Structure formats: C-alpha cells, structure tokens
C-alpha cells in the first residue's frame, strides 16, 4: 500500500433526498451529529464475540472494560452497551477470584478424584443383555409381522387399500375435495334435475379393519377401508309403490320387498346406489305431489302423508306411495312376508314413473341447438317457429300444452286397468261361449296408453269356411272395435258393452257360417237378415236369421239366432206329408207340393258338435237324391 497518495473520504455535500413534495420542493434527511454517528457505529460492535477472549486474556479485557466503563456516563442510547459491559465485568471479577483461590491453595486444593472400579457381575450382565436382546427381537418381530400381513393384504386384494379404493369410487361417482374432507355428489343435478336436495356424501378412512373372527371358515365379506357417510334422510332403501285398488285401502303402511332389505348391509357401492335411489324416489314423489295439488280433475287427487290417491274410474283408484325404510327390522319384514298384501305392487307402473322423471331430466338439459348459429339459445323449436310462421293464439296454446307426469301416469294406469278388464272379459266369454270359438291375439306392438287385440270367431271344424275377425283398440278411457264389415264401435270403459258387442258378433257369425256351409252343400239362400225383426225381442242386440232351400227346393231350413236366445231351427217340407187323402177343400195331390208350415226342430236331439255341424247333419238328412 503506497502512502504517496492521500485518499480522503468525506461525506457528500448533498444530503440524500427524503421526499419530493408536489410543488417540487426537495426534503433532505438531516445529517447525523457526531454523537449520533458514534452511537450508530458503537451499536454495530458485537460484544459477545469480544467476550470469548476474556478467558485467555482476562487482564487485557479488564483494562478494555475499564476503558469502556468511562463511557458509561454517556447518553441514554448507550444503555445497552453499558449493561453488557457491566455484566462482562462481573463475570470477569468472579473468574479472577476463582483463579486466586485455586492458586493460593490455602482454602482449596484441586486434586484428581480416584475412581473405584465397579464390581463386575457376569450373571447380572448376562440377564440384562438377554433382556435387551429379547426386547429388540420383539420389536423386529412385530415389524416383520406387520409387513407380512400388509403384504398378504396387498396380494389378496388391491381394493383393500384406501387409495386404490378411493380411485375406484372416483371413477364411478362425482367427487371433490373441500379442505380436508372428500365430498361426493349423489344428486341428479348434473343430468338435469332441479330437486333442491344437496345429495352429498362424505368419504372417510374407515377405522383399521379388525381381523374378523368368524366361528366358521366362511369367507366373510372383506371389510372396506372406505367409509361412506350419506345424509341421514338418504339412508336405507325406498321405492315407489304403485297399485290400483277397487277401493281406498286406507292402509298407509306399504310393505317393503325383502330383497331390498337384504341388500342394506353391503358395500359402499351398494350403499351409495341405495341412497341415490332414495333421492330419486323422493324427487319423484315430490314432483308427483306438487302436480297432484295443482291438477284440476273432476274428482280431485288426494295427497295424504306419503301417498297420492287419484281416481281412475268410478270405484277404481290409483295410489302412489313413497316407501322408505331405514332400519332393517327383520321381524317386521317377516311378518309382512307372511301376510299376503292386498294391494299388489305394479312394477310396470313404477318403472314408467321412473322413465317419466328421467324424461323430464333429459328434456331440461337437451334443448335443441339453435340454427342458424346466432339464433337465440334455449328456445323450443315450436316457439322459435312461432314468430316467422305467425302462429295464432290457439296454436301457441296448443304448443305450450304439456301433460304433467301425474296425468301421464294416471292415463297409463287407466289403460292398464282397461286392458286387464278387456282381457278378463274376453277370456270369460271364451270360456262361456263354447260353440263358436273365440280366439284372441294380443298384439305385441303396443304403447303405454294403447294396445290392440285381434279377435277371431270361428266354428270348430269349419275354420276355413267362415271366420269373423274383430279388432279392438284399447285406449285410455275408451275402447274402439272395428268389425269385419268396417263398422266401428266406440265404447266406454265399461267392459259390459264389449261383452254385448262380442255376443252379437257371435250370433252373426253363426248365421254367416251357416250361409257359407250352404254354398258348400248346394243349398240356396232364400233370405239372410242380420237384424231380424220377428220373434221375441232380444235383451241385447238383434237376432239374425237365414232361410235356406234344399238343392231341389223341396225342403227349407230357417235358422234364427239371437245373442241371448241362441239358435232356433225350423224346417218345412215341400210335400207336407207322404200320404195324400183328398178332402173337400184340397182335392188334388198337386197342392201337396206347396210348402207347409215350419216345424221347429228339437235342436238338442240333433247330432253334432256345434251348430254348424248340426246344420250340416240336418242338411244331409233333408237332401233328396
């Protein structure tokens, strides 16, 4: 370092600018005074480091300390420095005293302490060592056991693991993490439901599954490491009970199917599915109840507790109940199983209720896309056309009209009732009326509110000759029948009307069958009347009649068939009697050839399986060759 150049350090003339005011004036920071500067510098000294030298050079530091002590009268900011120095001085004085006492040896002598060698006991050491070894062995053994069992579990099923199970649940359900909890969503909101229930569930880690000690070696269901908690009102199982009674049962307790209860205690998947089903049923019932209150029917619908009652036909009611059980009580279920429940559950209607609600969900999300692309979103197609097509009020009202879910289910159940009645009526008639056979074909293509049946009326043994077909459409509240000749009959829900129709069709069939037979036998039809005006009045419908003449015209058969009175057969012969006795009035034999009066045949005595075969027999007898 060369000393030839003097380097002088001094502070800059300008003080540093503290701030510039809005009018441009600069404010400087005030420079430190000498004493302030000294204080600032002194505060930078680290006295703790200086203290380290005290042990080695006590005398020197002492002098330094005393030197510094002179400054203790300084201004207040020196307080900390003073305190530190004072404590350092105290320590040094104590050290000095200690050293003096040790040096003089007058009061105290420092001697090395003689240590007695401890007695070596081999037996106790052995025991202690053994104990320690045993303890450590136990720890290692525990660890091995734990690892082994863990590995076993892992190899046995991967699903046992919490995280892999969480992954599985994540794949099947909507989940999210909020803070430290894992929440899932059961609700149908993502598919268009507007039901306000939150429908959330929580997933937690189950307490470590205890080894299940089952008495037998039956493989118990593996305990899951996931625990699923659903809202308390979603626990258990529920379903919608639909039935149609002839009378109000007044019985609000609805039996639960035992199958449903048995599935209560099972995996989280089942539990979640059950809870979701409960939620769905709740929404369905809430929707139905709301509609039931709003619906204006001639006979108002009733909502009582968990049941909705609507009148389908006079005396026939539809009851829709929400059934929900949380605690599986085996006793009650067994009791319910034993007592045959009067009101039978209709799974088909329940299914269509589910379908209806799902359709509502679907429609709330699936709006038609706008075309062209700039057009307004979320307007139904009909409304979109309303402006440009200039729909009138009536058309708009028609477009806005939509059937509520309850109305739809009512009409579906009405159809079900009507179909069952029709079916029963046709079956009973087919059993009652043996003579022409009544064969019903139910078409497999039908909708929830429309089905049709084709009825064939045939005579046994003469199927190919005469067949009277009849098509019956079963609607919601009425039945339509289309006959062979194209006539259409509209009937109400009273199946008695259908019964009368079929009976009159049967009666006409018999006459038609005889007519067809006459063609085959060579007989001539003299008259054929569907609505015969003579004879006793029928209770229902009208009687039909046919008059036939034998091939050579000497014999005649007249048949009258009424829906209720049955067949009445008369014959007349052209020569009245074989022998002729001239009288005063009828002198010539030729008058004998005029047809005589009709004589009724004792129909029961004629041989034959049915009317047509009896007629055939009769014709065969009467024909002259």
């Amino acid at each position, binding site marked *: 370092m060369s000393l030839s150049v003097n380097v002088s350090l001094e502070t800059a003339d300008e003080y540093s600018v503290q701030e510039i005011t809005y009018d441009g004036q600069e404010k400087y920071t005030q420079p430190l005074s000498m004493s302030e500067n000294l204080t600032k510098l002194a505060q930078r000294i680290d006295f703790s480091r200086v203290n380290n030298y005290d042990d080695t050079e006590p005398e020197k530091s002492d002098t330094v300390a005393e030197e510094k002590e002179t400054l203790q009268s300084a201004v207040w900011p020196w307080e900390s420095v003073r305190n530190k120095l004072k404590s350092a001085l105290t320590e040094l004085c104590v050290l000095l005293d200690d050293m003096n006492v040790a040096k003089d040896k007058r009061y105290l002598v420092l001697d090395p302490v003689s240590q007695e060698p401890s007695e070596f006991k081999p037996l106790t050491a052995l025991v202690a060592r053994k104990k320690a070894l045993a303890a450590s062995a136990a720890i290692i053994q525990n660890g091995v056991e734990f690892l082994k069992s863990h590995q076993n579990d892992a190899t046995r099923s991967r699903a046992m693991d919490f995280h892999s199970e969480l992954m599985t649940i994540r794949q099947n359900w909507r989940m999210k993490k909020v803070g430290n909890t894992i929440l899932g969503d059961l609700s149908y909101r993502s598919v268009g439901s507007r039901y306000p229930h939150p429908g959330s569930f929580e997933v937690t880690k189950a307490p470590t599954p205890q080894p299940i000690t089952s008495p037998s070696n039956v493989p118990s269901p593996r305990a899951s490491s996931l625990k699923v908690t659903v809202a308390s009102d979603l626990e258990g199982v529920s379903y919608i009970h639909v039935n149609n009674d002839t009378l109000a049962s007044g019985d609000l307790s609805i039996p639960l199917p035992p199958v449903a209860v048995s599935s209560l205690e099972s995996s989280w998947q089942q539990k979640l599915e059950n809870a979701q089903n409960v939620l769905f049923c709740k929404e369905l019932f809430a929707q139905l109840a709301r509609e039931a209150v709003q619906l204006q029917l001639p006979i108002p619908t009733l909502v009582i507790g968990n049941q909705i009652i609507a009148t389908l036909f006079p005396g026939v009611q539809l009851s829709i109940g929400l059934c929900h059980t949380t605690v599986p009580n085996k006793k009650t279920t067994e009791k319910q199983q034993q007592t045959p429940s009067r009101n039978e559950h209709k799974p088909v209607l329940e299914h269509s209720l589910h379908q209806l609600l799902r359709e509502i969900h679907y429609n709330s999300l699936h709006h038609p*896309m706008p*075309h*062209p*692309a*700039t057009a*307004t979103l979320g307007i139904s197609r009909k409304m*979109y056309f309303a*402006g*440009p*097509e200039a729909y009138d009020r009536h058309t708009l009202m028609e477009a806005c009209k939509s059937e509520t879910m309850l109305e739809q289910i009512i009409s579906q159940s009405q159809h079900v009732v009507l179909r069952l009645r029709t079916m029963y009526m046709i079956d009973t008639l087919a059993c009652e009326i043996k003579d022409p056979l009544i064969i019903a074909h139910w078409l497999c293509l039908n909708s929830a509110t429309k089905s049709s049946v084709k009825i064939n009326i045939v005579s046994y043994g003469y199927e190919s000759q005469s067949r009277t077909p009849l098509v019956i459409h079963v609607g919601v509240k009425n039945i339509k029948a289309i006959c062979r000749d194209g006539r259409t009959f509209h009937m109400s829900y009273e199946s008695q009307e259908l019964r009368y129709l079929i009976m009159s069709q049967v009666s006409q069939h018999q006459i038609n069958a005889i007519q067809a037979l006459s063609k085959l036998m060579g007989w001539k039809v003299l008259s054929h009347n569907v609505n015969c005006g003579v004879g006793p009045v029928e209770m229902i419908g009208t009687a039909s009649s046919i008059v036939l003449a034998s091939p050579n015209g000497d014999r005649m058969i007249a048949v009258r068939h009424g829906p209720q009175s049955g067949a009445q057969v008369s014959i007349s012969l052209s020569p009245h009697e074989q022998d002729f006795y001239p009288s005063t009035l009828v002198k010539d034999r030729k008058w004998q050839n005029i047809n005589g009066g009709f004589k009724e045949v004792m129909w029961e005595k004629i041989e034959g399986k049915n009317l047509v075969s009896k007629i055939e027999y009769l014709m065969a007898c009467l024909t002259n060759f």
Partner: protein
Amino acid sequence: MNLESTRRSAQQEYILQGSIVNDSCEILLHRLRGLCDNGDAAPETFKDHEYVYTIRQPNGQPLTLRVRQSLEKKDYPWHLRYLGQPEIGDKNRATLVRSCIDVACSSNICTFLSEMGFKLDYEYISKGFIFKKGRMKVTVSKIFRLLPPGNVNTDEHVSQSYLVEVSVVAPTGQDALAEEIRSFAEQLKPLVQLEKIDPRRLQ
C-alpha cells in the same frame, strides 16, 4: 329505426373471441365436448350463410344488419341480427359487451331489406361446430368466401384457422355472466387464447 331507444330494453351480448389453427382444432373440440353439456352426443354442426346489409343513416353513419340462414336446416326460420358498437370497457370487465337485437324472420327478409334501401355489403359462409354450456354458446367455425359469388358449396376458406367464440345473450346489467365466461375461457387457456377483440382496432 331508432335503435338507440330500444337499446335500453335490448339484450346484451357478452362475448370473447379467439382463434385456433386447423391442426389443433380437433383437440379443442375434444376439450369442449368434455366441458360442455351433453357430451354424450356428437357435437352439433352448423353451416350458415350470412348476408351483411348496410344502410347510410341521415347523419352519415352506416347501419349494419346481419341476416343468417342455416344451410343445413333450410326449413328453419332465417335470423336477423343487429349488433351494437362493442364496448371494450376497462380491465375489470372480463368480456366484450355489445347490445344486440335478435329476430327470427321468414325467408323473404332479404327482399324486404333491399326494398327498404339496404345494400348487400358482403356475405360469407360460416361452418363449424356449436356447443352449449348452461347459457353459454360456444362456436368453433371456419369462414368461407363465396367464390364465385353465389356458390354456396364453396371451399375457399379465409384463413388456416378456426374462429372460436364464447358468448351469452342476456338482459342488460348481468355482469356476473362476464365472469362466468372468463372462467370458462380460462379452462381453454393453453389451446386457445380468448380475448376481448375490438374490430375497430383491427382495421
């Protein structure tokens, strides 16, 4: 036609725009299908023919009306649209806002506009995909020139990229929707950058 007076009651369109090159469009469509409603169905396509008509107002300002016709569904009504001046707004506003008036109309609207004195300014074909998420409408479309004029089955595309638009039409003052659109746009971020684009600046 005093559009300003009806502006108060008019609907407002909140819109963000962006573009994506052809190659990456497929990825964007997959992403949109996952994000938007009804992902189970195939994305809905559209092909629209847009005519832009202008008329000079007494004060010299041109007034523009847009007529759209769906070429895929020809029986659907035509669509007449007025779009106001876009408002960029400050940084806090998430989307472009412009007033808009939508009218469905019959197919003789072009004749009607011509009779009124409107002149056909330009026309183009917009073809692409349309998605829906809640009230949001997302379109990914390609613009085609009609070359030669009147040729609807043109393949004369304007650029090698697709126009992506996210928009909601709502009554005035629903600024929460803008946030909704922005958060949706955030989810498309690495693929497509949706921004407030002022057409006046592009010119």
